[in-house]
């Protein structure tokens, strides 16, 4: 019960600094600050040598090059040991032909899992659920996704989120539902009546004063 209470208190939120960590990984000891200057996708999986996680790791490995092009690093996590991670990733390479190129945290003491609210006791008291934290180069949390143990994540959506966040940062805009790179973006809603009137004179595609689109 105490563990649950602590987890709820420390649950990180979008817009807040990512909780600091120093963790043993398959690539040695890594600190959050090692990723400063890069986007980081920190994601948890329930356990090594499990079927859904294996498909997800292969899928993450497949999008790794696309993410690197966007300046994004990947960092996995589960409460398994480094030896287990190494054995599992070697097995994935031998049996499935997919090399896992990114590090995986061995969070045996659950220090990182609890700091990031990755253990949801009603789902599992011993395993992390499928979380995705998108952390920007200044180490602010920009997106949080949670999936249950039974549902594998959608890699297209993860890339889409990165594209949307990077577009937002570059152009100070928002992105509409189902947005894809190349689609029109949303001009932020006006804060004053004057701004609302002025924007109707701009060359935006306005449905009304509060919903204007433009190309970037």
């Amino acid at each position: 019960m105490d563990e649950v209470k602590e987890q709820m208190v420390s649950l990180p939120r979008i817009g807040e600094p990512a909780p600091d960590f120093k963790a043993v990984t398959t690539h040695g000891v890594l600190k959050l600050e090692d990723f400063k200057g890069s986007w980081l996708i920190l994601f948890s999986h329930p356990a090594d040598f499990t079927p859904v996680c294996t498909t997800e790791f292969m899928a993450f490995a497949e999008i790794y090059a696309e993410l690197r092009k966007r300046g994004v690093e990947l960092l996995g996590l589960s409460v398994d040991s480094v030896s287990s991670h190494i054995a599992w990733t070697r097995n994935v390479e031998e049996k499935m032909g997919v090399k896992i190129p990114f590090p995986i945290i061995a969070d045996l003491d659950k220090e990182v899992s609890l700091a990031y609210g990755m253990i949801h006791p009603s789902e599992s008291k011993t395993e992390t659920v499928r979380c995705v934290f998108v952390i920007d180069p200044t180490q602010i949390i920009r997106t949080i996704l949670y999936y249950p143990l039974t549902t594998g994540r959608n890699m297209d959506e993860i890339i889409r989120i990165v594209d949307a966040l990077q577009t937002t940062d570059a152009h100070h805009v928002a992105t509409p539902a189902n947005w894809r790179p190349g689609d029109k973006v949303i001009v932020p809603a006006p804060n004053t009546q004057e701004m609302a009137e002025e924007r109707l004179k701009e060359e935006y595609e306005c449905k009304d004063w509060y919903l204007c689109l433009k190309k970037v």
Partner: protein
Amino acid sequence: MGCISPDGKPTESGRKMLAALQKGMRSPEDIVREAGLPLFRVRSGLRDIVGAGLAEQKGESYDITTKGLELL
């Protein structure tokens, strides 16, 4: 340690970083360009290399030590 084996010898990534230092690269960013490793690997690897006495850190700058040169 990520780039130092339990026997104290640098791994392949460790050797790449030491080679970059030997060539005169001094900052993590320069080592990234020379060694072709991700920045996070270089930052964590430099901690290991300095900890093992194969390089020394002066502020933001790194240099290979005699011990590091011997292991290259």
